């Protein structure tokens, strides 16, 4: 706790049988920060969060949340955390308001059910059974339940997984609200958009390791100011000449598009046009975009996030 971080994770390891899920994960989250763990499925995000929530014991390394060890701290620890878990449910015949009343009753200090229903847009569903809720409503209830004890630290494990884009945006708005309340939030996601929009800092996790850590802006800058140029041409290129164009560090074919990663965009464009003329080929479309976290992930791992 010397660093004053709210969440401190040091050299965390965890294995399930032969599978090494975590191979020395370290990071720290400051008070009031929204911190994202970004990575593909199976990267070790959920294992990390579940160790922090006290649901699993680590094999090696240490974790503290507000200076407390989740494994040994008992009720004192449970009072300060809120969690929306992955792979969880409530009994089918439990009503929305009942769930909030019940979970609230477990804490000496808790938020009122009417307030939570209103804030999470569940007022009309207050008497509905859990089984009657849509995916988005279940997720909003999960978030309301995570906040029932007005926790200092909130863990959101894939809060928007499996939701359609519109519902996902609703959840984003809720998280942005929480951010204003200065809650410390650790969220896991495999949606780039989510990490870029919501997180103050992001740790990119792959194969049980943190492979990059920083603010979304820092991560993008760190990628060597590589810019992505997406090109579509009338005739496909087969001879790999695109990767030899001036300024191009990498070239990938993706469906009908070619992704050129360039450090010197103007020169690459000029070279590209010349090349097309020589080949008697035509440009159908061209798009220049600053690198996204997706590109950074690709650059770091050689894979797409949703592969």
């Amino acid at each position, binding site marked *: 706790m010397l660093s004053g971080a709210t969440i401190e994770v040091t050299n965390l390891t965890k294995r399930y049988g032969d599978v090494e899920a975590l191979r020395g994960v370290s990071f720290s989250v400051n008070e009031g920060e929204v911190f994202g763990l970004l990575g593909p499925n199976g990267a070790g995000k959920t294992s990390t969060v579940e160790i922090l*929530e*006290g*649901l699993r014991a680590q094999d090696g390394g240490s974790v503290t949340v507000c200076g407390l060890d989740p494994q040994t701290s*008992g*009720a004192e620890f*449970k*009072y300060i*955390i809120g*969690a929306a*878990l992955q*792979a*969880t*449910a*409530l*009994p089918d*015949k*439990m009503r929305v308001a*009942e769930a909030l009343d*019940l*979970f609230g*009753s*477990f*804490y*000496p200090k808790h938020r009122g059910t009417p307030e939570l229903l209103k804030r999470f847009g569940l007022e009309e569903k207050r008497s509905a059974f859990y089984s009657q809720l849509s995916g988005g409503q279940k997720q909003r209830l999960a978030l309301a*339940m995570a906040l029932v004890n007005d926790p200092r630290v909130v863990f959101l494990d894939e809060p928007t997984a499996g939701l359609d884009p519109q519902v996902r945006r609703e959840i984003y708005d809720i998280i942005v609200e929480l951010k204003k309340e200065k809650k410390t939030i650790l969220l896991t996601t495999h949606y780039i958009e989510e990490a870029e929009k919501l997180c103050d800092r992001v740790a990119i996790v792959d194969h049980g390791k943190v492979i990059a850590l920083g603010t979304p802006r820092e991560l993008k800058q760190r990628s060597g100011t590589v810019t992505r140029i997406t090109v579509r041409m009338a005739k496909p290129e087969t001879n790999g000449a695109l990767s030899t164009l001036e300024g191009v560090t990498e070239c990938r074919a993706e469906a009908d598009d070619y992704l050129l990663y360039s450090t010197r965009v103007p020169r690459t464009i000029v070279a590209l046009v010349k090349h097309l003329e020589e080949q008697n080929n035509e440009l159908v479309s061209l798009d220049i975009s600053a690198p996204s976290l997706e590109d950074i992930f690709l650059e770091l791992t050689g894979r797409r996030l949703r592969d």
Partner: protein
Amino acid sequence: MSRILTNTWALTMIRMRLAMRNRAFLFFSLITPLAFLFGYGALSRRFGPGAMPYLLAMVLALTIMGSFWGLSVQLVTFREQGILRRFRVTPVGASALLASSLISNYFLTLPTLVIEFYLSRSLFHMAGLGNLLSVFTLVTIGTVTFASLGLIVASVTNTMQETQIINQIIWFVFLFISGATIPFPKLPVMVQRFAVFLPATYLVSGLQRAMVDHANLTELGAYLASLIGCAVIAFVVAAQLFRWEPETKAPRRAKLWAAAAVIPFLLLGVWESWNGDLRTHASKDYQSIQEPFSLERIDH
């Protein structure tokens, strides 16, 4: 401590509400036991109203024994659906969850037992109420004990399929060799020798002694003590073996621990095998329904 009680109470209340909304629960906890009552009541019409206290004791025992089935299934369902793990990130402990199972089950079973008692009097003209204090005590302790056995089943099984298979086996043993359907003295001697090690046998016999002979608490002391011992061990073991996560498997030693719950009845069974107290009482109580047979013989 007071937080544990508040949590247990909150969980008990919600579980009673959930049970009342569950059709399967109503079927198994109300309809099935009442079907038993009507079946046995019809028998009493053949034997005469004098047989009803003996038969009602069997119906009460069957109703009470049913507790273990519902509780094990519920707990395993909660675990498999990931409901338990949500509670794990709250200050609720395993003991509060398990205790709420036992308490809600007790309050949900009691009305059925009262209805059975009432119908025996009103429809089947049962004379007398037996020793009510003994009946009430046995009903209370019995319900908690058999529910605890359900918690044990849930703690040693990994899947619903496994739970159901074990439940079927236990249920058939309880049903047919405890005296709850076939009167104890009518069981083959070999089966009787085994039956004296079963908690169910003592529940049936205890209730029959309370209903037919008006046995008091002192006379039923050994039975009650064994039921309490079994309940306490079962609860402690279930709390120790409690698993929140669907993917956590029961360790091998779990089955050994679970076996500890039957220790009180092993001791009682050994004692019973030596002095034959239960067998004597069971034969005596059985006389209460045998009388009509002799009347029938006179008729012929």
